[in-house]
């Protein structure tokens, strides 16, 4: 991994979804601040984990990064090109280099298309090769994701969850991308199947030199697969560090609580672990608390926390946004 080479740079990215009233004359009465100013780099060849609880904006962040949602503010630079400034056609051509794997392998494959059509769709969209070449490529891709190339004319319902996720991966690989956003690719799968898919993703990364943004809520799996991890809470990144640094020395009180809440499959360890039980629920992203978004649930909250905390470098690429840590 060349840690100096930035492939994706995200700067102050915001995505607010407007809330409107009225039918004929719609006026905006508020906004869901799903992503509220996030900044990070993704290095070429690495896997950056983006973790957080449901509703924290991690999926929106991934989609906005790929320009599937138009950002409200901020900039995304991919290999030197500012995606937010690209013209439609230029962006379309750029999309070939960045793909996405979705969470739900049951909803993300068109039930009326054969596997061949599903996987070759990116090739058709980007006019890559003749029909014969495309079919050949699909067979090659099925082989790459360890599925039998004979399955080419079957439909999605003939496959299990794990196999469908492989089809989703094959589709993402079709246009030979450099960067893939994996949006909870294993959370819909059974435990014994998860490891199969994770290993496949790791092998593909080695073989093809891929860069991943791995969005997940399973913190154990993220520790396994990622190089660096960013923790999101209510639309913002609260901490980012190299994975062992983050898991062994979490600095933000939210990260500490989140990590302590993950159960460990070992009764002797479990008996000794101290859990930080957070009070209450995540506030609404329509009207997040002023200053630090976490202060309403934070055990260390002080008066200072009503001011927005700065994104500080604790050294060695360990960043945190907290007044108290």
């Amino acid at each position, binding site marked *: 991994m060349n840690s100096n080479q930035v492939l994706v740079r995200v700067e102050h990215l915001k995505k607010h979804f407007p809330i409107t009233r009225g039918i004929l004359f719609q006026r905006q009465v508020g906004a869901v601040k799903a992503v509220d100013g996030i900044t990070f780099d993704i290095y070429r060849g690495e896997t950056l984990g983006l973790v957080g609880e449901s509703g924290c904006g991690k999926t929106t962040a991934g989609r906005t990064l790929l320009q599937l949602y138009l950002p409200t503010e901020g900039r995304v630079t991919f290999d030197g090109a500012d995606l937010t400034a690209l013209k439609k056609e230029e962006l379309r051509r750029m999309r070939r280099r960045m793909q996405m794997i979705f969470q739900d392998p049951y909803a993300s494959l068109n039930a009326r298309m054969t596997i061949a059509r599903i996987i070759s769709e990116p090739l058709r969209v980007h006019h890559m090769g003749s029909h014969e070449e495309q079919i050949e490529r699909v067979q090659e891709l099925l082989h790459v994701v360890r599925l039998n190339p004979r399955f080419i004319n079957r439909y999605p319902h003939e496959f299990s969850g794990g196999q469908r996720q492989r089809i989703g991966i094959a589709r993402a690989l079709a246009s030979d991308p450099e960067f893939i956003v994996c949006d909870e690719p294993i959370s819909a799968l*059974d435990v014994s199947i998860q*490891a199969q898919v994770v290993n496949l993703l790791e092998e593909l990364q080695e073989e093809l030199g891929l860069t991943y943004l791995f969005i997940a809520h399973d913190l154990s799996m993220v*520790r396994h697969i990622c190089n660096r991890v960013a923790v999101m809470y209510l639309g913002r990144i609260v901490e980012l560090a190299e994975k*062992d640094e983050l898991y062994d020395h979490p600095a933000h009180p939210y990260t500490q609580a989140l990590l302590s809440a993950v159960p460990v*499959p070992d009764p002797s360890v479990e008996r000794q672990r101290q859990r930080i039980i957070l009070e209450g629920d995540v506030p609404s992203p329509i009207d997040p608390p002023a200053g630090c978004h976490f202060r309403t649930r934070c055990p260390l909250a002080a008066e200072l926390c009503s001011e927005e905390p700065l994104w500080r470098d604790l050294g060695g690429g360990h960043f945190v946004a907290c007044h108290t840590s």
Partner: protein
Amino acid sequence: MTPLLEVQNLTTRFHTLDGIVHAVNGISYTLEEGETLGIVGESGCGKSVSVLSIMGLIPEPPGKIAAGQVLYRGQDLLKLDEAQMQHIRGHEVAMVFQDPMTSLNPVLTVGRQISETLTVHLGMSEEHACLRAVELLGMVGIPQPDDRYGDYPHQFSGGMRQRAMIAMALACAPSILIADEPTTALDVTIQAQIIDLVKTLRERLGMAVIWITHDLGVVAGLAEKMIVMYAGFIVERGNVDDIYGNPRHPYTLALLKSLPRVDRSSQEKLATIPGLPPDLLGLPPGCPFAPRCAYEVERCRQENPQLAQIGRDHEIACWVDVTTGRER
């Protein structure tokens, strides 16, 4: 002494158009007063069907409890009629389901749904039941319970709905609480809250708990005894320390190895279990795990092993000793 709950040779099948689905295939276990039992397995392994059978909640047809006994304090629940079973449910054995949104009635207030249990089961007056419901909501940690009594389920967050479900389950002080993946739909920090709550209530009320989950981490911190299920069979049974510390069934072993851990850095690849779980429509004659098993010997494909004792209170259903790799 008779155990609190004794399940013997429980067998549940579903008669479908495609054939007979063998969901639960002769499982037996016991639960003592105040004890917590974890039932672990992947989707389709029969863990939910096994407890629904205990509660008499299997729709017949297509379902059918083909054999077995469920002895609650010595009384066979499978022989009771619906009215008697109504009394057992809620009163003696209560259940909390996975999805707190679909298991609450959206058009009744949360408080009403709890107080209804009290008026029906305990014959309380409306007023008395209302007061008790507020008390229960407070007990499960819902802030301002008297204000929240009149809220509808959609006004509650996921974690709060699950708390309300627990309040409802505990309304008649049951001796057994069955929780069917109660935290699967919740975030980890909320899961930690719910587990913490159940632990506190268990000690305070002295009830036994059956906790069904696919998450091996949750069981490790919560249960004393556990059962690992695969394809409708119990493949390993014992106390949690023995099973996590010394897993002896190849499936348990593989499952534990395939899990990364949040408290450890790992560089190696995850161990995987090849293949897929079997189709319960037509189980092979031998051990159901044999096609995916790393320790398979010839006998495994012909004969399905019965649960056999391998240590004090530790049983496995396997022909092979995983410590030597040879037939036992």
